[in-house]
């Protein structure tokens, strides 16, 4: 019984990590319709910001998190203005290629500054080890992840569903020319949305260090799981990403627990089957 709960919790918390890494993509890809494979690179950036602040400047881990978000958002906004803005209308393939180009370059830049070796950060004691609840041992850090994920979900849903901003983004995506002609400042809208999505990636990257570690390959590494979450969840749906991530995490962990020989096979199969029957994912916005 307690093993079952432990496995489920492991799965769920792993799912929450996936969610934190992918929710930003749900914003940039889902809402803005921009096939942003550079998402992982921004996550990596956030991760390195936290790593550098903790290890070199001696900041406490928690204090670095807002900065990982802000710094990534800021740099992403610059990238948006200089690069991405020009290819919103160039089709998926061009977007895939340009953003993959950014990932390639980010790999080299990260390798240059931080070396090819992987890094981790020293967590505060209260996030280390496990918390005992009855005879259940739950890793403290994973409990923390779940709490952050829930907070991010709530905040984003409030912001996007209950303000006009979400509708503005979708209007700008549907037809930027007309949206502009009707007075919406699409450049500002896109820049802000992109910064938000990438900032979330940065936060996710910072939070992922303890479990996935950080190295120059991080951007490539997380790309596929993150894309799986967003595509299954349904484009542009925060809630969909949340459920998809949770389901995927539980499915993956439980699947490996029960059928360890199948490895990642099950996840890919799961994705292909789901997308075949529901090409727009579970909660598609468009």
């Amino acid at each position, binding site marked *: 019984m307690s093993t079952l709960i432990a496995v489920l919790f492991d799965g769920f918390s792993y799912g929450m990590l996936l969610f934190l890494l992918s929710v930003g993509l749900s914003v940039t890809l889902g809402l803005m319709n921009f096939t942003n494979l550079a998402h992982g690179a921004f996550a990596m950036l956030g991760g390195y910001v936290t790593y550098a602040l903790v290890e070199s400047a001696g900041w406490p881990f928690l204090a670095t998190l807002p900065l990982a978000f802000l710094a990534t958002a800021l740099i992403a906004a610059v990238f948006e203005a200089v690069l991405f803005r020009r290819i919103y209308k160039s089709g998926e393939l061009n977007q895939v290629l340009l953003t993959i180009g950014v990932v390639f370059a980010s790999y080299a830049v990260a390798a240059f500054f931080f070396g090819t070796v992987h890094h981790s950060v020293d967590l505060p004691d209260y996030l280390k080890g496990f918390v005992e609840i009855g005879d259940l041992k739950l890793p403290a850090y994973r409990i923390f992840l779940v709490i952050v994920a829930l907070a991010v979900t709530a905040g984003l849903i409030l912001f996007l569903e209950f303000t*006009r901003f979400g509708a503005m983004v979708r209007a700008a995506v549907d037809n930027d020319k007309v949206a*502009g*002609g009707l007075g919406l400042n699409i450049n500002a809208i896109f820049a802000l949305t992109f910064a938000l999505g990438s900032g979330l990636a940065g936060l996710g990257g910072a939070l992922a260090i303890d479990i996935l570690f950080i190295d120059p390959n991080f951007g490539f590494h997380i790309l596929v799981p993150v894309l799986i979450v967003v595509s299954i969840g349904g484009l542009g749906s925060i809630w969909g990403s949340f459920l998809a991530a949770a389901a995927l995490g539980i499915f993956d962990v439980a699947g490996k627990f029960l059928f360890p020989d199948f490895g990642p096979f099950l996840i890919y199969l799961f994705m292909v089957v789901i997308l075949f029957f529901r090409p727009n994912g579970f909660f598609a916005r468009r």
Partner: protein
Amino acid sequence: MAEALLELRDVRAGYGDAVVLDGVSFSVSENAGVALLGRNGVGKSTLIQTVMGFTQFLSGSILWRGREIQTVKPHLRARMGLGWVPQERDIFRSLTVEENLTVVARPGPWDVKKVYDLFPRLKERRENKGNQLSGGEQQMLAIGRTLMTNPAMLLLDEPLEGLAPIIVEELGDAIGRMVREAGMTLMLVEQHAEVTLGMTDEAIILERGRIVHQAASKDLLADHATLDRYIGLNIGD
């Protein structure tokens, strides 16, 4: 006569390296209605889009309340009071009818309720996504959406296309009222020359990107020879 609200001086514009408008000059004074007529492909939409800032601007100048705006970004022109209704409707497909209206709203006399009063059909379909509307409903929504921005001047690119005759009539009246009672300025491109000329004070005829005739709407309506020559209309038969 009031000061010109919008004035074009010797405007040359086009797409890429194709020049479509060449040496276009005219002015629209506050609270006036101008009809823009001409055959297919003469550059009527191009003219409106040039005013909005969507074409390649080559030379000349565009003045809004006396200020040059040809380098101003489109969304700022819209916020200055230019209200554009695109020819191809271009409804935001993934937004509901109501979101289409509220997303561009700016303060002023027009609000969702007034738009719904003008087009009751839209109120019935308020929860529909933009891409689930009939052609005519999209046309109504396109007009309503622009009204939500509370513009000082409406640039209507064939707004009556695809609307039922009775709606055309009502809308024509409503637009006429806006100009007459609410102080709205109007530039109207339409195929229905009779209706158009009835709703406007002045008319401009374009041919191959140049203005070839300019007259009071009343006079033009009576000038069958000119209409026939430039538009090929045989009114009255």
